[in-house]
């Protein structure tokens, strides 16, 4: 192996500058540690370049075009509302660029040393970085692996970028005639983006419904929307996939009969794998699970005493807010403090149309766990602000322990569901009861009044809907 002359020494080496890595690096540097952050691609990771931010940005533009059409009944005049795809993607790049510059500034400003390149461990105190400016050796006291994860291909059917597409790369999919295989988070996010662009495509999923971690009713508004948009949704008990020249053939078992589908492109959502290949973990004591994710114990420690791991590379939650938190928590630990305590809930958000947001126990999960719960719902059709702005699809659902009225789950599907969920998330973390939310004033007119009314409904006392279920 050819190695350069330069050898860098650092206290903390952070590998990967996604949400987990850059947060950890910045926070550790702010606490006075000597930190080097190595990243092989752009700063910001999947979240900024392929996930949360690009999806939100693009969906917002397409949603606006849709809003304009609906708003013609509201007196809005605008001719031929449509989206210039190229320009929308340029705008997406502008947004990403702006946020990436912000992260770079934060890193610089807090004294993080930055290195561009692919990092590989040579031992528990030494790594090599191969980047555009050559090869460098880094000697470290402690290292943080925050290399993230990526989608896993179907067995024997590798991603090829033209016929079989990685969901991580599916943002740019311009074609019609695509089949999305799987009913998980990434599959549905990509599906929502494509639907917003009015593409014709097919979703094939296993199990009784998509996004099985949600109560089925939360999905109904989204499924209805898919239907309106002409998206075909198939539930299959099993499938086989074959490449056939420039097509992909999917054979489905649907209720004891077989069906065959041909697609011009296939986006299989087959779960995640860790970005550990090429990391040189074999030169360290770091252990991985059978599925490739790094095993960590207390305080994000791996089996190598000098190496820690956080974020998607550990395969736990697969969302950016958890990655941020683990980054902050580990920075504290590295600085000699205790880390952050566990949260009670990890809120989940789906950038569908309308948005879905969910935190804590669903009704199904609570019943499965044997918890005696009461449930409340409130539809946006009865919410003044939602009616005012013409966004009446969806509802809020709350799940509370029957004996104590303690709120255990809050779920919303509708316009701006992500943001209105947050009161519920805080309620769960604070151990709030239904009464706490009901007795708190909610300004009028707001969408979050629906959160209050759902809690009141669970208590059987909403004045704003006629039938209490």
């Amino acid at each position: 192996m050819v190695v350069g002359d330069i050898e860098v020494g650092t206290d903390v080496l952070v590998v990967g500058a996604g949400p987990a890595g850059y947060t950890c690096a910045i926070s550790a540097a702010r606490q006075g540690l000597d930190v080097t952050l190595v990243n092989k691609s752009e700063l910001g990771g999947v979240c900024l370049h392929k996930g949360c931010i690009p999806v939100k940005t693009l969906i917002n533009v397409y949603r606006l075009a849709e809003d304009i059409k609906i708003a013609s009944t509201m007196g809005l005049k605008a001719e031929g509302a449509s989206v210039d795809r190229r320009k929308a993607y340029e705008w997406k790049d502008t947004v990403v660029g702006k946020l990436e510059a912000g992260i770079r500034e934060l890193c610089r400003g807090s004294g993080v040393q930055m290195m561009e390149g692919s990092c590989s461990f040579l031992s528990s105190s030494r790594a090599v970085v191969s980047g555009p400016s050559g090869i460098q050796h880094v000697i470290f006291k402690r290292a943080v692996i925050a290399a993230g994860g990526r989608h896993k291909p179907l067995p024997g059917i590798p991603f090829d970028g033209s016929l079989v597409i990685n969901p991580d790369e599916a943002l740019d999919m311009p074609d019609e005639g695509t089949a999305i295989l799987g009913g998980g988070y990434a599959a549905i996010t990509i599906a929502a983006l494509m639907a917003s662009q009015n593409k014709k495509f097919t979703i094939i999923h296993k199990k009784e419904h998509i996004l099985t971690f949600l109560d089925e009713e939360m999905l109904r508004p989204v499924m209805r929307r898919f239907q309106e948009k002409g998206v075909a949704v198939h539930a299959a008990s099993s499938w086989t996939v074959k490449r056939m020249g420039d097509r992909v053939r999917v054979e489905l078992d649907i209720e004891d009969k077989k069906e065959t589908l041909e697609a011009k492109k296939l986006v299989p959502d087959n779960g995640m794998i860790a970005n550990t290949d090429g990391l040189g973990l074999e030169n360290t004591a770091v252990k991985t699970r059978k599925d490739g994710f790094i095993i960590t114990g207390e305080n994000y420690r791996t089996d190598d005493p000098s190496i820690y791991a956080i974020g998607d590379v550990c395969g736990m939650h697969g969302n950016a807010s958890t990655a941020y938190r683990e980054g902050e928590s580990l920075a504290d630990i590295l600085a000699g403090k205790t880390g952050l305590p566990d949260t009670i809930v990890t809120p989940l958000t789906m950038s569908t149309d309308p948005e879905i947001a969910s935190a804590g126990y669903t009704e199904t999960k609570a019943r499965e766990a044997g918890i005696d719960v009461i449930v409340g719902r409130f539809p946006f059709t009865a919410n003044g602000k939602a009616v005012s702005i013409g966004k009446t699809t969806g509802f809020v659902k709350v799940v509370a322990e029957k004996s104590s009225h303690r709120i255990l789950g809050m779920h919303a599907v509708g316009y701006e569901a992500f943001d209105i969920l947050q009161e519920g998330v805080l309620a769960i973390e604070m151990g709030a009861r239904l009464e706490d939310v009901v007795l708190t004033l909610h300004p009028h007119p707001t969408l979050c009044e629906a959160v209050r009314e759902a809690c009141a409904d669970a208590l059987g006392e909403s004045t704003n809907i006629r039938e209490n279920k």
Partner: protein
Amino acid sequence: APKAEAQKVPVLATPATRMLAKQLGVNIDSVKGTGPMGRITDEDVRSAAQKPAAKPAEAPV
């Protein structure tokens, strides 16, 4: 039995109190809350920390 129960319905303590428990090396699941409905208060955590039984948190390097 209270342990299994605690796993199903999460511990009744605010995030800040849970942080305090972590800082003092107290296992919050084993603290008995004296607040309304068994809520664990900062004071409950502090007095649990004084008991010799409480195992301190793993010291960071």
